[in-house]
């Protein structure tokens, strides 16, 4: 597995010249929330079959593949899958899409329409795992703190534990709750034969270049 290489986000512009392909392995929800403006493929890590992916997209064995996730952990797991399947030219994009954003990569962010103006074409956008984690952690802290103040102080151990868990995940990049949530059925990607075409292909992201190139930005040394 040691032949997996890494690439810094500031070097992503070289990918196309090398005939390479960027593969985003985050969940569909995370991908619709924000994704690279430059061409890339998207298959959630849980559904990824390296040989099948390469074959159906007309990529030969030696094509360089650049794995992207949020911060790098899932990209490394995806790269290991490819290496194990015998693909020799696999790379991990260091720091994931967060680092890409910091390095001035154009990111298309989606503004989710909350109204029903789109009529029968309204398409439900799954919430990203990141937002689900924040929502659940927030609700747990809110409820157990209230119980600790007004019912029994023993409840305060729960927000204490949540705080410790969040700090740990912030430092290590590993989040048990996110890993668990990713396995939930609503976070599984849609089937390949998505039949959503017809007259209703309306999930038009408002393309917002998230940040202008900023050489002075932290994290992009």
């Amino acid at each position, binding site marked *: 597995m040691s032949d997996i290489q890494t690439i810094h986000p500031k070097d992503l512009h070289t990918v196309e010249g090398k005939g390479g392909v960027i593969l985003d392995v985050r969940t569909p929800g995370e991908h619709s929330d924000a994704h690279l403006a430059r061409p890339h493929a998207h298959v959630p890590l849980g559904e990824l079959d390296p040989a099948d992916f390469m074959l159906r997209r007309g990529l030969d064995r030696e094509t360089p593949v650049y794995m992207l996730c949020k911060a790098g952990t899932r990209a490394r797991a995806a790269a290991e899958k490819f290496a194990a399947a015998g693909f020799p030219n696999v790379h991990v994009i260091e720091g994931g899409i967060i680092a890409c954003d910091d390095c001035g990569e154009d990111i298309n962010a989606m503004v989710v329409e909350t109204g029903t103006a789109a009529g029968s074409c309204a398409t439900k956008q799954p919430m990203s795992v990141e937002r689900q984690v924040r929502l659940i952690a927030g609700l747990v802290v809110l409820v157990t703190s209230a119980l600790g103040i007004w019912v029994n102080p023993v409840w305060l151990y729960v927000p204490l534990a949540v705080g410790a868990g969040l700090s740990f995940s912030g430092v290590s990049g590993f989040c048990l709750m996110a890993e668990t949530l990713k396995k939930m059925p609503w976070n599984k990607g849609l089937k390949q*034969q998505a039949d959503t075409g017809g007259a209703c292909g309306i999930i038009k992201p408002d393309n917002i270049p998230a940040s202008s190139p900023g050489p002075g930005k932290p994290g992009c040394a």
Partner: protein
Amino acid sequence: MTLKPDVRGFFDPATATWTYVVWSSGHEDRRCAIIDSVLDYDMHSGRHSTASADAVIDFVKARGLEVEWILETHIHADHLTAAHYLRAKLGGKIAISRHILAVLETWAPVFQSAEDTPLDGSQFDVLFEDDQQFTIGPMTAKMIHTPGHTPADTSYIVGDAVFVGDAMFLPDVGSGRCDFPGGNAGDSYDSGQKLLALPPETRMYVGHDYPPGPRREPQCMATVSEQRAGNLRFHQGVTRERFIEAREAADAGKGVPELILPSLQVNLRTGQFGKDINGVQFVRLPVDKL
């Protein structure tokens, strides 16, 4: 044992076209074929570019391949071929089905282009006969006549792969329209049956992909067994009559492809814009001829 050729696909988002490079990586023989290349062309400005073809050239050079064939599955009506440009840059023989002569006869008068578009097909290096066998480096290949979309559509069988052009698309897309001059839905059905009769594990590579939903990214390959089971138009149990009925209903009232007029005249010259007048080349737009 059937050779399993290596296949690299290049997708052109502007025309949804797949171009393929086919070779055998397990061999010292580095000869390859390029199938259905694209020459970029902008209708409004009349400008062309070779960006798509250059990506193929870069790939061929990077892999150390030697171009033996530049194959066309048919005279495309929705994009221009880069065959002539590729031959000038990389060598190789440009080949197409002999049935192309009928297509030349139909279209040359429309464009009044006999002056720079030989009606005998001599602008192509090889005109394949039906079922003609040939080799791509160490691999045996065979052309089969698969008309319907146009009267001269060809599929190329190479090892365990078949390149079908517009005779069939991916299962959720179906197959090519049959309303161009000389196109015929009944022929298309018969051609489809020929392709579906290939061994079930055969890799079928399509000439275009039009993903039906925003989450389905462009792909180029489905196996014959997947096509038999689930092709929108060719799935098992569809009779010839019902296929024709559905095909004709789908084609009724369809607009013509944006690039049809430049495509036909240029592709009949293997991708050249034709004889110049004082150094300027032209695309002819015949009035009321389509």
